[in-house]
């Protein structure tokens, strides 16, 4: 019961912050609202007793969104949001598709018979189980992810770095 209440509360916070991301006109507020939306998602994980993933989500998303805040201040036309510009397009189409997508997912959530609910796994067991999973069955997946991360780092740096001598 308590678990449902906390999950619901953090879920409402995540949704509210996600809506604030697109409604506010200040860019830094937008980035930090996204940060708190992801942090609420991390808190939902903690409420669902998935401790490792919750803590990981909190850490990673805070750093990522703070870096996003810097990029927004660098590239956006109106970072403080006091200019009152309207930065949206295809309003009707996007609202309709957002509503339809959300409703479709809600319908699936409510009308599918999900089966019996399983008992919880203690957090210490979860960390150990996840470690064994990574090291035994999913080792190739994790190594591929590592190589992908390295490739993405090199690609992003190569795009972003200034060429010497051509400017």
């Amino acid at each position, binding site marked *: 019961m308590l678990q449902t209440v906390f999950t619901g509360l953090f879920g409402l916070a995540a*949704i509210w912050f996600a809506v604030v991301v697109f409604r506010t006109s200040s860019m830094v507020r937008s980035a930090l609202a996204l940060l708190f939306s992801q942090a609420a*998602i991390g808190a939902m994980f903690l409420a669902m007793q998935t401790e490792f993933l919750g803590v990981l989500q909190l850490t990673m998303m805070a750093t990522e969104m703070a870096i996003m805040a810097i990029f927004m201040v660098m590239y956006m036309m109106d970072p403080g949001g006091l200019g009152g510009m309207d930065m949206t397009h295809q309003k009707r189409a*996007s609202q309709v598709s*957002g509503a339809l997508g959300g409703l479709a997912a809600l319908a699936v*959530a409510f009308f599918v018979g999900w089966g019996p609910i399983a008992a919880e796994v203690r957090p210490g067991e979860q960390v150990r189980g996840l470690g064994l*999973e990574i090291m035994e069955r999913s080792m190739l997946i994790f190594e591929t*992810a590592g190589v992908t991360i390295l490739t993405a780092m090199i690609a992003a740096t190569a795009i972003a770095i200034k060429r010497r001598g051509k400017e």
Partner: protein
Amino acid sequence: MTTLIVALAVGAILFGVGLYGALSQTNLVMIMMGVEVILGGALVNLVAFWRFLHPEAYSGQMFVLIVMTVMALDMAVGFGVATGRFRARGSIEMEEARDLKG
């Protein structure tokens, strides 16, 4: 069962909000933020499925790790592309990026 339905509902609404944001914004960074919200909703669903239906199969948590990695990577490469576009044109508005010819 209620907690599972609540979590899935939250994931569904986050998906809808993220889809609205990704389609309605003109700025590349804001579109990326919409995609982040969509992936966040997917993460909520994944964790709810893992915890309530199959907590013995840790491949669920593995999936969550991979989705988090994808979120970080897509932001990194997206910002690289934004930097390149900003250097070439002076803005990253997607409305101005319609034509192929420079």
